[in-house]
């Protein structure tokens, strides 16, 4: 097919559950490409000599190469091609902010729509899994060296996956009762089915990774114990940024005011939407307000809708272009009827006599000069306060570094926000200890956490081999 013909093909749409139907269920929203649509979409790729798309991907997925394999109809080979640099394509295809990564730099995006790289990544990974084509890779001979991975989020899973292949004896310690980190407790089922995360973890276990759940390192065991008692040769810390932030405004401790972490944990990890078959309850708001503008906010708002809210409003202090959430999620949220109240900021929560939230007082904002992040700073407009009615508030304003583990490690260097200081290979200030993912960078993305895991795995391998 020549370039002209290719350019005539328009970006393929992925079928989705109808907004009015999906707003009432927890099933996945986009339904995936058919083989035919996938091949048609993959044909749009121009196979650029210098593929710009790759530069947008934090782990340099071999994009034109895997797209070509799709065109040829060898979907399993396409999945393996992606896995050369990205172990979790079924996850990344669904949750990467493609519009600011690989698809942002795709040459086709200059004049029209970029190739739907994420959707195709998802397609081949699903194809491989659903048709049982996943092969357990060959392991290098056992090295009789033990590595402990603390935390089973994307960074920890990546380290474990890479080191088990190299012949290490790898054990993951996870504080919660299910592995996967944010992929399990944060991102909801309708965006990332838990069966996919379970399959990925299973795949590691089949290769020999040991998984110890319910182990809070720092409490159940210290990192020192891991070295001295359990005889680990190296430790990777991938504990994420699991500390909810609050705004410190009046009324934030009223009942029915949740952090997004709590709200999403109750729903995703504890399955509170299946209460009482699952024993964890959740407050059912009719008129829900979510504060923030990231993925966390969108996920909370859409969960509220699915647990029966009649009205869900997002209050965000900046403008729409500045929302950090994935474009697709904002679009989906609006389709489902979620209201965006932009350039507004809560200043106070007001409760009833029982201590449950009833109203939110907000102030209007306008955009001022750019701040450190380069985004225009929102400034309050004096005298513009107004009050919203609400019976459930979710604070989705971000997360910080959880000190539970690091406070037991006085020799570990932290930055002023409590994140672990590590170099580009994940090396920390303590010998034999690596770190990566959100606990180093602050809240970032799945693929960045995986990239950090990859670097650390390489460095751990060379450290154990050479002692450096």
């Amino acid at each position, binding site marked *: 097919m020549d370039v002209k013909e290719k350019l005539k093909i328009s970006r393929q749409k992925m079928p989705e559950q109808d907004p009015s139907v999906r707003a009432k269920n927890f099933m996945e929203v986009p339904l995936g490409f058919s083989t035919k649509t996938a091949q048609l979409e993959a044909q749009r790729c121009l196979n650029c000599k210098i593929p710009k798309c790759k530069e947008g991907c934090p782990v340099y997925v071999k994009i034109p190469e895997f797209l070509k394999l799709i065109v040829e109809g060898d979907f399993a080979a396409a999945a393996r091609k992606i896995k050369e640099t990205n172990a979790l394509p079924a996850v990344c295809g669904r949750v990467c902010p493609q519009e600011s990564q690989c698809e942002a730099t795709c040459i086709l995006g200059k004049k029209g729509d970029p190739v739907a790289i994420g959707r195709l990544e998802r397609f081949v990974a699903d194809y491989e899994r659903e048709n049982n084509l996943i092969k357990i890779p060959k392991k290098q001979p056992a090295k009789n060296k033990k590595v402990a991975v603390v935390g089973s989020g994307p960074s920890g899973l990546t380290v474990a996956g890479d080191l088990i292949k190299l012949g290490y004896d790898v054990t993951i310690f996870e504080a919660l*009762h299910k592995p996967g980190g944010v992929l399990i407790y944060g991102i909801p089922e309708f965006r990332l089915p838990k069966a996919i995360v379970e399959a990925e973890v299973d795949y590691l276990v089949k290769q020999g990774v040991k998984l110890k759940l*319910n182990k809070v390192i720092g409490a159940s065991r210290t990192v020192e114990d891991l070295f001295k008692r359990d005889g680990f040769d190296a430790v990777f810390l991938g504990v994420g940024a699991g500390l909810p932030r609050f705004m410190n405004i009046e009324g934030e401790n009223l009942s029915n005011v949740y952090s997004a972490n*709590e709200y999403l944990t109750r729903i995703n990890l504890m399955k509170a939407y299946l209460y009482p078959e699952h*024993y964890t*309850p959740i407050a059912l708001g009719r008129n829900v307000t979510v504060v923030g503008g990231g993925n966390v906010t969108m996920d909370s708002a859409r969960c509220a809708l699915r647990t029966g809210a009649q009205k869900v409003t997002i209050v965000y202090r900046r403008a729409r272009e500045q929302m950090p959430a994935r474009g697709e999620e904002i679009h989906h949220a609006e389709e489902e009827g979620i209201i965006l109240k932009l350039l507004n900021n809560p200043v106070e929560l007001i409760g009833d006599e029982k*201590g449950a939230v009833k109203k939110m007082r907000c102030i209007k904002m306008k955009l001022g000069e750019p701040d450190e992040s380069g985004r225009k700073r929102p400034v309050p407009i004096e005298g513009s306060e107004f009050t919203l009615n609400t019976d459930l508030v979710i604070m989705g304003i971000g997360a910080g570094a959880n000190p*539970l583990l690091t406070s037991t490690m006085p020799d570990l260097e932290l930055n002023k926000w409590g994140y672990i200081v590590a170099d580009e290979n994940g090396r920390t200030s303590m010998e034999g200890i690596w770190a990566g993912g959100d606990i180093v960078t602050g809240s970032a993305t799945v693929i960045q956490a995986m990239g950090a895991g990859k670097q650390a795995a390489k460095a751990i391998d060379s450290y154990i081999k050479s002692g450096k």
Partner: protein
Amino acid sequence: MYEIISKTEVVPNIYELIIKAPEIAEKAKPGQFVILMIDEAGERLPFTLSDWDAKKGAITIYFLEVGLSTMTLARLDKKNISAVIGPLGKPVSAEKFGTIVLGGGCYGIGGIYPIVKALKEAGNTVITIIEARSSYLLYNKEKLRKYSDRFIVTTGDGTKGEKGKVHDVVKIMIKRKEKINRAYFIGCTFMMMNCFNETKNHDITTFVALSPIMVDGTGMCGCCRCLVDGETKFACVDGPIFEAKDIDWDILFKRNAAYSQQEAMIYQFHSCESREV
């Protein structure tokens, strides 16, 4: 899976549960708690560690049947539960402070024990006071007596020991100008607040073990937040034992009641169902 070594209804509605959890038994310190899950669909339930035995690899907790989860645990006929997580929370510091009053009510009679023992072993003069509505609801007496310089029992109906509650005894002690350097109270929020109301104006450093609703127990969700000294604290990692003078009790009561309607309904529904079969 964690093996249940034994489960005993020590007094009506209060159960002693001994579980095999060697790693926790080895690390446990007074004032800490564990989180249990009965099965995959269960809640994550926080319970105070009452005793542990590193040699046997066993931990002991006492729990009161109050709702659906504790009812399920009370009636469980399986020999194991799916998760035990811990030890969680900040331990109390067991130093020599002088004369210490330790009060326990309800599950707190079990919960106060390790603190009594540790403070006695640290060389303090230990006065232990426990309370129950009636004599048949008292338990753990011998264990507590063993580590107490004075051991006082109170009952609401006067069927054993002093008539009244822990705070009544504390009030009398203060009136008699008995020297008290520190006090620890564990029980329901109301009991702890009553006790603190007696000690607060008398230069007695008072600690209470808060029990806000929790989910993860690792500082990740913020559900257990309390207002302590004007600052938001997470009871699961910053506590659960806090100095009582700094606590905003009103918020604690209100947040603890957040799910009471839903839970009361479900509890009744399940109790009725289980009665039918």
